[in-house]
């Protein structure tokens, strides 16, 4: 359940962090070197990505390592699959209804 999945990816910095974490695991310090934002800000972005199940954390000694969790994008996949079928059906119905309006106005 991730109702704010799109919001999480709608922020440019978070999106960039997510993409970087798709390539390999990073620590917060490593991530900070790529972005012009503070470490607490990076941590906050990671928190939101984790909350949305887009990132997972692995503890190793003093360090936390972060990696993207592409499966977290699954709601997006199901949303697409549903509406890719839904809209063509509805638009087909619309074209029928439009013809009926035409008939009524005659």
């Amino acid at each position, binding site marked *: 359940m991730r109702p704010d999945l799109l919001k999480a990816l*709608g922020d*440019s910095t978070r999106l960039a962090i997510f993409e970087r974490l798709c390539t390999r695991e990073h620590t917060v310090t490593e991530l900070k070197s790529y972005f012009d934002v503070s470490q607490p800000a990076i941590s906050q972005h990671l928190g939101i990505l984790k909350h949305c199940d887009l990132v997972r954390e692995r503890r190793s000694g003093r360090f936390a390592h972060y990696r993207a969790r592409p499966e977290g994008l699954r709601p997006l996949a199901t949303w697409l*699959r549903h509406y890719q079928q839904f809209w063509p059906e509805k638009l087909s119905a619309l074209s029928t209804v*439009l013809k009926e309006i*035409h008939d009524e106005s005659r």
Partner: protein
Amino acid sequence: MNQGNEQIVVEYALTESPAKVWRALTEPELLARWLMQNDIVPIVGHKFNFRAQPMGDWNGVVDCEVLEVIPERKLVYSWQGGSTANDAYGHKLATTVTWTLEPATDNGTHLKLVHHGFHPDDFGFKAMGQGWRTKGQAIDSAAASA
């Protein structure tokens, strides 16, 4: 019909005029005949909903807010409905539906629907470009395993 990974685009060539198509998009009774029961008013800021038959754990309601209105040309509203638990009803993501009507040479209408997860004015939508390809692949694999 053209389908991207990040949005759904459906285009239709209709023989009816933009004025008539606009009515079918914005008059609740006509809209209900092809989409769902609703209380739409084409005024920016108007909150309305679509109501379908409840199914499973989805109450059948899609919550919307009118975001942009250019009479007989463009209609944009937010769209949030479906179930977070059952994939069959589409996931309850906060999305946007954009209708564009263009007069066609035969006095008909070229109707375009774009249903997307980011409003085009949002930075996130613009930022997708390059990066989205990575996610597109991830989505494909997620879809394959879903």
